[in-house]
């Protein structure tokens, strides 16, 4: 163990955390935004839009990776357009890691946000309107605080999912040490190379990290459970 700690390249952990944080910030706002817009739709439109937004959760990450490549590959029009006009490149870059993690983690945030919003009593929104408040104020000052526990657990789950993303990441961002090799990619690489010790170390790191994230979530949301004690 001491040997590993002395010689290991920490860049995968650093990359994973950085990717996770950036992707989570993106999913947080876009997930809430999407959930809010979806709440305004009628039932048919809601079902269709919800299906599309939830797909990355149920599809294999490699399928998501395939679609991401289809869009962002430098041999495809949009990817080339981004590179030529904005100098943005997602294939084989850290930005690709973020994009892959974002796409995979997004449904978790979106679904949790939507479930949380659905729990908010509509009379709260109606009351806000009769009190002359703007829709914006109603949403951020009234709805979001009421939905906060659900939003918090959505955020934590997205973060946990984002730091562990593997399938879509390898396809879009590849496996470049110090650039796109996150912890989960590193595990696969080390095992393939026969370095079971290093792989095991990364496994331990990911297991502990995930455990603390989920435990933290339970502490946050546990405070708001009113009738949990009745089950014991």
């Amino acid at each position, binding site marked *: 163990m001491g040997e590993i700690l002395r010689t290991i390249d920490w860049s995968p952990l650093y990359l994973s955390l950085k990717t996770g944080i950036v992707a989570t910030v993106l999913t947080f706002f876009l997930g809430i935004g999407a959930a809010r817009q979806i709440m305004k739709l009628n039932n048919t439109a809601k079902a269709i839009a919800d299906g599309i937004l939830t797909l990355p959760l149920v599809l294999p990450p490699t399928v998501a990776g395939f679609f991401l490549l289809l869009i962002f590959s430098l041999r495809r029009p949009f990817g080339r357009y981004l590179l030529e006009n904005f100098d943005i490149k997602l294939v084989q870059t850290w930005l690709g890691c973020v994009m892959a993690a974002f796409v995979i983690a997004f449904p978790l945030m979106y679904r949790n946000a939507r479930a949380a919003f659905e729990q908010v*009593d509509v*009379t*709260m929104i*109606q*009351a*806000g*309107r*009769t*009190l*002359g*408040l*703007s829709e914006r*104020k109603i949403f951020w*000052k*009234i709805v979001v*605080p*009421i939905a*906060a526990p659900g939003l918090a657990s959505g955020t934590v789950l997205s973060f946990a999912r984002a730091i562990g993303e593997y399938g879509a990441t390898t396809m879009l961002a590849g496996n470049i040490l110090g650039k796109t090799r996150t912890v989960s990619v590193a595990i696969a690489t080390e095992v393939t190379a026969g370095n079971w010790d290093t792989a095991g170390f990364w496994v331990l790191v990911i297991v502990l990290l995930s455990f603390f994230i989920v435990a933290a979530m339970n502490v946050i949301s546990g405070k708001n459970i009113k009738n949990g004690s009745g089950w014991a």
Partner: protein
Amino acid sequence: MLEARIVKKFHGFQLDVEFKTDRGCMGILGASGCGKSMTLKCVAGIEKPDSGKIVHNGKVLFDSEKGINLPARERHVGYLFQNYALFPTMTVEENLRISLTGRDKEKRIQVLEQIQRFQLQGLEKRLPSQLSGGQQQRVALARMLLCKPEMILLDEPFSALDGFLKDTLQLEMLELLKEFSGDVLFVSHSRDEIYRFCDHMILLSNGESVVKGLTKEIFRKPLRVEAARLTGCKNISPIERISEYELYALDWGIKLKTAEPIEDSICYIGIRGHNLVPAANPEEENTMKISLAGSAHTTFQRQYLIQNAATLSSSKIWWIWEKKEYESEEMETIPLYLKFPKEDLLLLS
């Protein structure tokens, strides 16, 4: 001054009401699910009617023909929700403050004044869940009035409170409404509340306004069978007209003389339970020999279910007798005859 016509389809039936009110408190009485709350929500602008027109003090709030639908926030309407709709994550103070605009200092003064006016001192930092039902209602009222509404809508304001509290709070609200100069709409399924608060009222049944007018007048002379039921008349029977001043009550098996002429439109007769009086002489007008079918007692009333002794297939009739003394549960003897005083008979169409 509020003029409204609201047509809206929902829950498989059609709401179609039309009313007009000028100052003072107008009651909307109806059974659960008859469209009372929906009417109020349409006026407030949180539900949209399919068609109709709502005009308040000359300002068009809604007009389906002209395509006008003013958003709720621009209608200046105060709405007291059935569950009070206090924002659960905000303290009392924050709940009051949220609708205010302007400088922080001014806001603070306004909130402070309102807290004193509504006797909420000491509760400023509490969350709504830490308040009693009555306190929650006071906060909701205070919050609503801070917006300076031009019209107040009260949606079953007392249904979430228990009995003792209700009476006190009703008196408090009466005082408050006296100070308010605009229109007030008061929705309730309780005829007592409507009677107490509203000088005029409309009666809703199955989404339609059945009767409109002065509250006391409607309670005294409901005119329509739905109105009689909703104002608490338990005894109603279809009739056959015999002559201008005489009819036969089909369900009760009795001929009754009336004080007023029986018009062709009249098809029902009603009498309130407490208007029936014991009679000594069976030969008296409108008197029936009775047999007892059941009895139930509330704190201050004896309620008897009686029947025409002559025809046992006849419908049962409620007879209500106020207790003079709280202790005595049963009357020693049930009278043999009950009289239907003709001046108390309600002719209904």
